């Protein structure tokens, strides 16, 4: 018998169907055979063991178990926040469950998809996959070039077996059958007084393409992924971002990144506009459209472009996405003498759908003591009964800024990198808001207020908007897309092209010829029985004129 391909499990059973016809039987004996095959491995020393291990790893059963393991191993990453997707969620988790956090972190659950255990499973799976593809490809290449295998001795147990008597000679009958099989695009070989035919090689080709394309996805990500990088930048209206490493707010380089790869271009936010719809009955505000109009400077040329959600722009091998937006109130701080010591837009991070936003202002220099402020910004402020403010609409109809001020050491000078969006108040003294006895500063646009103790004053000077832009360079996209389409194509072909073998034998009888037909499915093939019947019918039609002549 020809060598078995990995996908011949069922086929092998089907060949064995000359012995056993009932599927249930097959299953039972299949189990038994599988078990005894495993046990019967002779102890051949190291090489033997290696070969044994390799065979186990590349077996269908191992592939199946690894696939299922992979599915299960992916679950934890959806239950707890991931550092890659939701870093703030991880910080929050740590605060909420400090003990559990340590255990889970040791187990790399916060980095599930790059963890040792997850990687081990998919790497093993892909080793198994490659070990499975290679012999199958070789085998298939051979099969493509060779004739269909010999006709089995007894067709009686195969699918769709039927016999037919026809008054013709063996040669006539076989010639007609040959022609009919060719018409049905079978590859046909003659063995004695029988024909052996096979079709549907494309099925295996599709299956191999599918599995190779899976490797293609992983390989693309593995290699090209090293050259990828992405960064984030908060861009305030009228500010210009220059594409260089130091300009980014955060940056994630791939393994092979070097900063010479960043092409110099500049981008300025000219205007950001947002459109909202208000549902009158529920009072819920829905964003409808976000548009950032920008000016791009590249090679000394200026161009106006528009970035929207779902409509990124391409620039010098990078792609720019509009991912967030908000307000960046300009706060001006003056010292006791009225001298400006700070005047900058500060991006406030949106906290809800109506853009109530939280921002941190740090004034390290120019005052006697360093000044830090935690601010809330309400685009459309409305006082609640309690006296607290809330925002009722995301557009700046009634912009109000409230500030709680702190003095002391901001900790900016000790070299430890500080989060610009957090203020560590442990070593600071609060001077407005909270329990200080002094109210929080509440400023409308253009208003100013004095800080306590004659420190100076704060003014809410202007209200530009900001957008947060993600800048990505991802060289894996093309390869992954091509592989994915091959995956889909290979899948469709391999699932719906039936691969089948067909046999016709002819035996001379007293008054003509006795014909036998049977088929064999290679893979799932519900239409096989009908196909054998169709062949027999068409064959008898072909034989008919022969008789008349």
């Amino acid at each position, binding site marked *: 018998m020809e060598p078995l391909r990995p*996908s011949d*499990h069922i086929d092998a059973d089907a060949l064995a169907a000359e012995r056993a*016809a009932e599927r249930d039987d097959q*299953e039972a004996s*299949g*189990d038994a055979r*599988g078990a005894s095959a495993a046990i019967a491995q002779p102890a051949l020393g190291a090489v033997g063991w290696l070969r044994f291990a390799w065979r186990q790893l590349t077996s*269908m*059963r191992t592939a*199946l178990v690894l*696939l*299922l393991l992979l*599915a299960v191993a*992916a*679950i934890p*990453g*959806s239950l707890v*926040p991931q550092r*890659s*997707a939701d870093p703030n*969620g991880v910080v929050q988790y740590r605060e909420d469950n400090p003990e559990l956090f340590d255990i889970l972190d040791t187990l790399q659950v916060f980095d*599930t*998809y790059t963890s040792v255990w997850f990687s081990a499973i998919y790497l093993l799976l892909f080793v198994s996959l490659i070990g499975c593809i290679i012999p199958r490809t070789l085998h298939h290449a051979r099969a493509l070039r060779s004739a269909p295998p010999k006709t089995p001795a007894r067709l009686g*147990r195969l699918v769709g*077996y*039927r*016999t*037919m*008597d*026809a*008054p013709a000679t063996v040669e006539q009958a076989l010639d007609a059958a040959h022609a009919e099989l060719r018409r049905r695009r079978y590859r046909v070989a003659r063995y004695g007084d029988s024909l052996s035919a096979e079709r549907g090689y494309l099925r295996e080709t599709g299956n191999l393409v599918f599995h190779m394309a899976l490797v293609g996805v992983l390989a693309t990500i593995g290699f090209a992924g090293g050259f990828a990088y*992405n960064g984030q930048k908060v861009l305030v209206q009228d500010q210009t971002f220059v594409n260089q490493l130091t300009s980014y707010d955060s940056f994630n380089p791939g393994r092979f990144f070097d900063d010479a790869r960043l092409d110099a271009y500049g981008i300025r936010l000219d205007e950001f506009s947002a459109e909202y719809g208000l549902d009158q009955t*529920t009072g*819920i505000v*829905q*964003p409808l459209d*976000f548009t950032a109009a920008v000016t791009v400077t590249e090679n000394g040329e200026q161009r106006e472009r528009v970035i929207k*959600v*779902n409509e990124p722009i391409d620039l010098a091998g990078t*792609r720019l*996405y509009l991912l967030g937006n908000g307000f960046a109130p300009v706060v001006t701080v003056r010292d006791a003498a009225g001298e400006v010591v700070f005047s900058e837009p500060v991006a406030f991070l949106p906290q809800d759908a109506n853009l109530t936003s939280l921002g941190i202002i740090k004034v390290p220099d120019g005052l006697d003591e360093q000044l830090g402020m935690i601010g809330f910004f309400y685009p459309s402020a409305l006082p609640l009964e309690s006296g607290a403010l809330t925002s009722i609409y995301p557009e700046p109809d009634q912009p109000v800024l409230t500030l709680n001020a702190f003095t002391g050491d901001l900790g900016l000078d000790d070299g430890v990198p500080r989060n610009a969006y957090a203020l560590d108040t442990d070593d600071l003294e609060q001077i407005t808001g909270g329990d200080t006895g002094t109210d929080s500063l509440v400023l409308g646009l253009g208003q100013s207020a004095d800080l306590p103790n004659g420190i100076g004053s704060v003014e809410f000077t202007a209200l530009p908007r900001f957008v947060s832009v993600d800048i*990505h360079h*991802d060289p894996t996209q093309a390869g*992954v897309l091509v592989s*994915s389409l091959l*995956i*889909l194509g290979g*899948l469709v072909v391999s*699932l719906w092209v039936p691969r089948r073998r067909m046999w016709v034998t002819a035996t001379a009888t007293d008054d003509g010829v006795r014909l036998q037909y049977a088929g064999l499915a290679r893979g*799932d093939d*519900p239409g096989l*029985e*009908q196909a054998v*019947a169709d062949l*027999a*019918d068409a064959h*008898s*039609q072909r034989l*008919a004129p022969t*008789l008349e002549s």
Partner: protein
Amino acid sequence: MENLVAYSLVAVYSAMGVYTVAFILFTLDLAKRSVAATDAASAAPAEAAAVASSSSATVTAASGSSATVTAASGAGSASGVATTIERPVTAAASALSTDGPVGATRFQKAAVALAALGWLLHLAAVLTRGVAAERVPWANMFEFGLTATAVGMGTFLGALLWKDVRYLGAYISGFTLLALGIVTVNFYVDVVPLPPALQSGWLVIHVLVAVLATGFFAIGAGLSIMQLLRSRAAASKAEGLRFVQTLPGASALESLAYRVNVVGFVFWTFTLIAGAIWAERAWGRYWGWDTKEVWTFIIWTLFAGYIHARATRGWRGDRSAWLAIIGFGAVIFNYTVVNLFFKGLHAYSGL
């Protein structure tokens, strides 16, 4: 527009009413069948014996539709070729247990008719909702549930044209009814405009294909459940649910389930790819292990496992059926629990 939204809801409730009756009739059909089943069961050995004894005859047309077909077509090749067709006894005898359902009752016809009527109302609800919203009717959980159940029911009714799977009627109509009830009562939201991230042609295609995949997986799971019941019944000689004996044989159910599930799997693969392309545009990366992405991946992997199981010794039969059912369970989980309770970028439930 307000009116259309209201009409749509009226249509949903009417559809639910009609489905309820269809469900009851489908269930009655199964219940009544069990009585018939016991009769059939006692008759079966006798019939088998009859087949065996007639096996020496050249044409065994006693059972097995294919034998009859060939005999007829042999005659149909009216060219005077003397054809005699023989089929092995074993195949004929096993055809007894694998061929179409027996013992269907008169309730079944009415049930199918009502299911079709309910589906028309259901379809009307989907369409009016879409027209009212001036966009595709699958942009939040309510709409997705409404449309996915319509597709599931539609797939079932369409499948009836191809194969007699009416024994799935109780499962499908019960499931649809339950799902419709839950989405209208718990997930209902009024028509609201699309947030910017959803304003994309990919919403149409990505979600539509996900809906289709879900419909196919639902039916596949139904068939796998029937398969398990059937093989249980075959294994334990005990009585159990008697209608089960009127179902096609476990292996016929298994291969039917496989064919339905692989269609679902191809759709799912496409959903995954289309989703990745869209994610690249909307979120700046095609894959980021967002919770919804994770679960889409898990489901894909489970069904890849299922397909492998069907080609792996020792895993065909019950085990692969369980995989298909678990896979569909994961689809439901992805739609409900993941949407409602897991944090992620796919925050589009509208709730």
